[in-house]
């Protein structure tokens, strides 16, 4: 039940973003300059709804690209400051037993992220 709720939320979030990105295109603001090229790629991929999964739902060894982080300001800030920004590639290294935290590889360093934080990070699986 909880998980379905999370997915719905993700969908709603995605829709609002999609509208915003359309608005941006209308405005004709370019993202280029110093902004990452991955941003655009990320946006295109995100157009396929249902592509998101929470980071916590990945299996050991899977790679994914971060789409967005939800939650209270302090939490999002903490997560992006630790390098979990949009377009970043993550790989799940380990999942602790008994519903414990996960260990991921991000930006060449290893991070331990608790279950509830990792369920706030939404990603798209990479083949």
């Amino acid at each position: 039940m909880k998980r379905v709720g999370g997915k719905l939320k993700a969908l709603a979030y995605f829709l609002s973003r999609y509208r915003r990105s359309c608005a941006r295109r209308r405005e004709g603001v370019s993202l280029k300059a110093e902004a990452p090229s991955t941003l655009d790629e990320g946006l295109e991929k995100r157009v396929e709804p249902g592509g998101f999964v929470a980071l916590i739902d990945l299996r050991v060894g899977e790679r994914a690209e971060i789409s967005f982080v939800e939650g209270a300001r302090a939490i999002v800030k903490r997560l992006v400051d630790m390098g979990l920004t949009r377009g970043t590639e993550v790989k799940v290294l380990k999942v602790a037993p008994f519903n414990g935290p996960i260990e991921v590889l991000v930006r060449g360093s290893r991070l331990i992220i608790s279950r509830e934080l990792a369920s706030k990070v939404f990603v798209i699986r990479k083949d």
Partner: protein
Amino acid sequence: MVIMSERKIKVALAGNANVGKSAIFNCLTGLHQHIGNWPGKTVERAIGSLKFKEYEIEVIDLPGIYSFSTFSLEELISREYIAVERPDVVINVIDASVLERNLFFALQLLELQAPIIIALNQVDLARRKGINICEKKLSDLLGVPVISTIAIKGVGIHELIESVIEVVEGKKKIELKRIEYGREVEDRLRRLEDLLSGLKTTYPARFTALKLLEGDEEIKREISFINEKIVSASERYAREIEEIHGEPCFSVISSERYVVASKIAKEVQEIAPAKMSLIDRVDEIIMHKFLGYLIMLIVMFSVFYAIFAFGNFLSAMISDVFETLKPAVLKVEEEILWEGAIGGFVACITLVLPYVLPFYLLLTVLEDSGYLPRIAFLLDNVMHKMGLHGKAIIPLILGYGCNVPACYSCRIMETQRDRLIAAFAVTFIPCTARIIVILGLVASFISMEWAFTLLLIDLAITFAVSRAAFKALPGEPIGLIMEVHSLRVPSINVVVSQTWARLKSIILLVFPIYVIGGTLLAIMYAIGLLRLIEEALAPLTMGWLGLPPIAGALLLFGAVRKELVVAMPAIIFGTIDLSTVFTPIQMLVLAFLTMIYVPCVATYAMLKREFGWKVASYITIFEVAFGLLLSGIFYRLLLFIGL
């Protein structure tokens, strides 16, 4: 002879957690260091000094952080220190094996416009991972000197100091490069910078502008006193950026900063595939879903065993020495005085030295080797049930040795809220002194099973109160997110000097309390004041708890040092056979009460130092009430079972 005038310079060490900052700090300052608190804050501050050429250099080790937001006190303190105290040089210690993440912080230091020198540390570890970094390129890209170091071996430290001096003397120029953000951010940033130019602000204009866009509350407040309009302009800009990017402005800024960090990292490092090293294999095993727990149990058990075996041995030896010093024939009153005053001194030595010293030593070893995050990984879930996260296992384990350093170690938790919950839980953990009471009363005169039962009940209570505190305290928990560093063999230098510095601060706290508190109580007893208190407490001790009247005095003694609860009756009644003094039920109730009724005075002092007297007093009052209530119920339960 010419007396050279010494020039004083201030150097700060900044960087992420666990990059070898303390190792560099130790290389620089040796034993000339002092660990204390930042004024009015419960964040550890390490200051040291060294003499080099004609300079007297003060080195300050800033807390390990990842960002300059206001997520934690550490971040706030660090940025304030750099901006307000303006150290002559900020050495940014970078872990060469995780360059990208470390550059994210370096870029923020650049934005603070601090005079930076980069110490590219652990280059040996990076090389082992197949990472080669070009110092020169990095130095050019950032516009700051870069020195490669291996702090544990002392490599590069001399060059580092030389470079500090060259910067101070102006022989080496630092020309900080400017980080360009994406156009949408950059445009608005410049407009804010223009608005801010000429104003007197704590931080440089660009840094202030960035923080305004990020919505930093503290900086918003500062600027709103100067010019309300700038703040509202920044809020408008932030909203615009948010509209364009479809994510919060602070998140856009962090993302773009990481993009720059990533770019630089790619440019300066060459990565060759590395084969799995021995230490990686060890790492695999200690984080394994089955073997990991086994090893953790073994490590914990050995740590406990080592400490208690060594502690008991040493403490018995020291007490014997003092015992022989004690005059042979003493009247009861004299003996109590002796026990109170000299005993307090002895207790401190026999408790602090044998138990706390090895605890600190092993804690530092565990910390420095990088094992702690791995324990946190394995135990996060269990700790969650207590309303804490994985790291909290450390203070809880420490608590079994002595609550005082355990409360102190709660600093490893990130937020004040987590620290408080952990410290609160710690005060319920039976320390060595309480275990002595349980062993001395229950295990010796009733049975080992009952002693274990009491300890188990206590564990359950700890769980329950911690969870309750988690529910009751306001604020949202952030949850566990921490970096895992490569395992390493701890550096002896770091371990020794940190243990010593921590030990010193504990001794200064505990010694006076033990000696003065013990003496005062002993005098009160000798002049008969305690009799009055005993009588006043009689309804509680006798009526509610079914204890003999002497319990009133014992509980007061126990508030100073818990082990006196069992030591005092032996002296007062002149017998070691306490079963002639207490009934079995009384022993159980007394032992139970001793476990929870109050944090000892030294723990109170530590709580006060960490959280202020208000919190310390609330905890104390709660525990007195809670302890009395539970013990009364426990007493009636025992009567009911008919022991």
